[in-house]
């Protein structure tokens, strides 16, 4: 009996420590039970219900259909073009302000919609709507790089411009001497 008492006396601090660690662990587990959201993990490591909630939100993306309400001619130009797969905002910016203004202008003939701005050459630009008659826009997709699909139209710029006899090889608009952006036919 004395040995047990002595052992208790010599290891008391360790038992206190153990109780503390187990206690903290238990509190953490209880906290976890409260923190794990309902429907978590049903379909993967996320809240399953989040998908429906997100899907129910209105889209903030300006879809091509919105642009084509006014720019039907572009839709016709692109109808047979390979570029029909490219979304308007890819080359012209998100256009939130532009669409909002256009909608207001449709109701109030006194309002005018300013023309698209000149692009500053930076794809991270915050210009709402811009005109991108710039070689960098085209080359963002068409510059030949290793690993591009065989049937994708890719070019070596210097070679291509020389072969085609381009006059302004350094010009930003050089691509548009021969190509239209919407219709891909040469």
């Amino acid at each position, binding site marked *: 009996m004395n040995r047990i008492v*002595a052992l208790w006396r*010599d*290891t008391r601090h*360790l038992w*206190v420590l153990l109780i503390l660690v187990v206690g903290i662990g238990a509190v953490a587990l209880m906290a*976890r039970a409260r923190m*794990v959201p309902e429907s978590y*993990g049903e379909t993967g490591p996320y809240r399953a219900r989040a998908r429906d909630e997100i899907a129910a939100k209105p889209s903030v993306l300006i879809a091509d259909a919105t642009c084509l309400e006014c720019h039907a001619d572009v839709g016709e130009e692109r109808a047979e073009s390979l570029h029909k797969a490219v979304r308007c905002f890819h080359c012209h910016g998100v256009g939130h302000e532009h669409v909002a203004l256009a909608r207001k202008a449709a109701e109030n003939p006194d309002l005018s919609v300013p023309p698209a701005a000149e692009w500053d050459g930076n794809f991270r630009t915050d210009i709402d709507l811009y005109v991108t008659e710039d070689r960098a826009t085209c*080359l963002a997709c068409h510059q030949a790089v290793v690993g591009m699909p065989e049937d994708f139209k890719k070019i070596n710029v210097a070679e291509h411009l020389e072969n085609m006899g381009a006059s302004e090889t350094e010009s930003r608009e050089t691509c548009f001497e021969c190509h239209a952006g919407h219709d891909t036919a040469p």
Partner: protein
Amino acid sequence: MSEIPFVFPNDVHPPWSIMIVLYPYITGLVAGAFVVSALYHVFHREALKPVARLALVTSLCFCAFATLPLLLHLHRPERCFNVLVTPSVTSAIAGFGFIYSAYMLVLVVEVWLVFRPAIVEQANSLTGAKALFYRVLALGVTDITDRSRAIDSRLIRVLAIMGIPIACVLHGYVGFLFGAVKANPWWSTALMPVIFLISAIVSGIAALILLYQFISWRRGETADRECVGALARYLWMFLVLAASLEGLELLQMAYEAGGEWPILRALLTEHLAVSYGLVQVLIGSLVPLLLLLTSFTRRLPARLVMFSSGLASLLILVQVFAMRWNVVVGGQLFSKSFRGFVEFPLHWMSREGLLAAAVILTLPLAALWVAGKILPIWQPAEAGTLADAR
């Protein structure tokens, strides 16, 4: 062929800031300092006795702040517990959360057991609020018997043994976080965890040499030559390993000359020329390797050995920081198109800026200062602990 650099849109902005450089740097110091304390507690390297306690507390202080850079990097830091509450088995950082927690537990318990005799002594000798503080630290148990000391010493040794693999995994895992990014050829190598681990040990030993020398100087004492010499020799050995592994990895990449090599060569020769070639290799590795050779002979004056070890340690701490920088920042400087480079934005006054980084680096040192006020870290070879147990 390319007139304009081709940079993928998701490469334009390097997402990982200097905070992600600090994270492996601080974690490395944790692991390295712990290895030194284990060399004393487990492998009985008596020469390291003067820094054994310092190493343990240094490890704890740096560990307490190891995740702070990550929290500052997160835009929603309050979500940090999500990786623990709802861990994904395929999430690398979730794994780190558990390894870090396990290591922290082992470290806190070991430090508590090592300092328990001193805590109990303070609890019994002081009065008022101070006594209460130490009584709380002692978890209310303010008596110590010889047998309980012996039990504690055995437990300290068990924890130190357990801590070695956990510390190795902790920092090896940080290397794994980078090594597992297969889209990035500058990171994706199986050697990355090993390189991180060895350089972590290097940085930890270097930090301890500097701390020990600084504290000795502040206390008006002379640092123990045997201790500094032993640390310097360990440092030299681990530095040889680290520099060799880093060099061999680069040599293999260069000799294989795979599709990624042209961009990596341009990265090293143009964008990281100073931080890699000059700082990491020349000033941070070769010079310290030569300086540390002074610790291998007894013929040189003690002051020279102390000075060269201290200088080498300082250079090594800069080198390891440069190594983390070169890995983290270097890996984001080139586009995954392998065709273009981007700029790395660095600001003084932002949440992830240089000033915040400097503050984070001083916080563990401030914690160490506070710990020194509470616990007898600097007391020489007290009664209790290891020697008695053996």
